[in-house]
């Protein structure tokens, strides 16, 4: 599973960037539709839950995100190979 940031909810606080132990996120440079510099889930292949289904190992980002903007999605075929 990979983390996906919802641009309608993210307020660009970058707590996910700070908290992720595998540095999967980076600070964004583009202003979203909501007016924030959204964080970017740039290296989700480093995530503890990469290619993992069932019980997830780490959910620090999802638990910490103040805006409930992060959710888990299954990887698409190309992402699985990274």
């Amino acid at each position, binding site marked *: 599973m990979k983390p996906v940031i919802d641009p309608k909810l993210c*307020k660009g606080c*970058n707590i996910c960037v*700070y908290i992720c132990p595998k540095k999967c996120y980076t600070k964004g440079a583009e202003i979203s539709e909501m007016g924030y510099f959204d964080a970017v889930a740039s290296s989700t292949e480093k995530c503890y839950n990469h290619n993992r289904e069932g019980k997830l190992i780490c959910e620090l980002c999802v638990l910490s995100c*103040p805006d*409930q903007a992060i959710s888990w999605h299954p990887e698409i075929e190309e992402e699985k190979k990274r």
Partner: protein
Amino acid sequence: MELFEFYRRDRWPHVFCPGCGNGTVMNCFYRAFSELNLPLDRTAFIGGIGCSSRIPLYINSDALHTTHGRAIAFATGLKLSKPELKIVIFTGDGDLGAIGGNHFINGCRRNLDMTVVCINNNIYGMTGGQASITTPHDFQSTTTPFGNKEYPFDLAEIAVAAGANYVARWTTRHVHELTKSMKTALQKKGFAFVEVVSQCPTNFGRRNKMADPTQMLEWFKESSVRRDKARLAAVDHVDLNLAGQITVGEFVDRNRECYEELIGVEKHG
């Protein structure tokens, strides 16, 4: 239960500032509640006035948004009139410990069967950043422009002394421990108090050189010390609190009779 079955999706994005710890607490609470499979329809959520007191209005259940400081008093009436309801209160440091102080200590003393989550951001955030009874000494606020001359309360220790059955304190940096303590609190019979030290970057952090919420989270991490270890080291926890250290952990877990049992209306919510 899905996150947005528990929360009212039509009210998102919520009003809390970017980086506000309230949202983190909401995640942990949702996890605790849904993992326990508690019946949402038989749970009522009550808040006073303040940012964290608004959380009940975001939950998909009965919610009572009351007057400043009085959530526990309202909850006392609601719970005792309908003992089968489970009661959860969301409050803040000022709402609970300043104006609500009397209801706080008497709620603990009566040991009513309810769960109280106090999100302590060390400030009056909603009104713009005035000092609270947990603002650390020397810190800046809009009403302490020369530095806070007062010393803070230790809300968790007050709950212990006043008789609450379960008391724990964590910070928003401790999401796993917090979730676990919330689960214990929700299952505990009697007054279960969970204090969460949380970041208010907009009105506290910004005036105290921690405008970035991640700076505040780092500060929580650096200042936290396990209370049981602090006690073993024979350090006075009051001095620690006053020196800006945050003692965290489960403070007390006891089984005094809850008020409902004492007056004969017990139906554990």
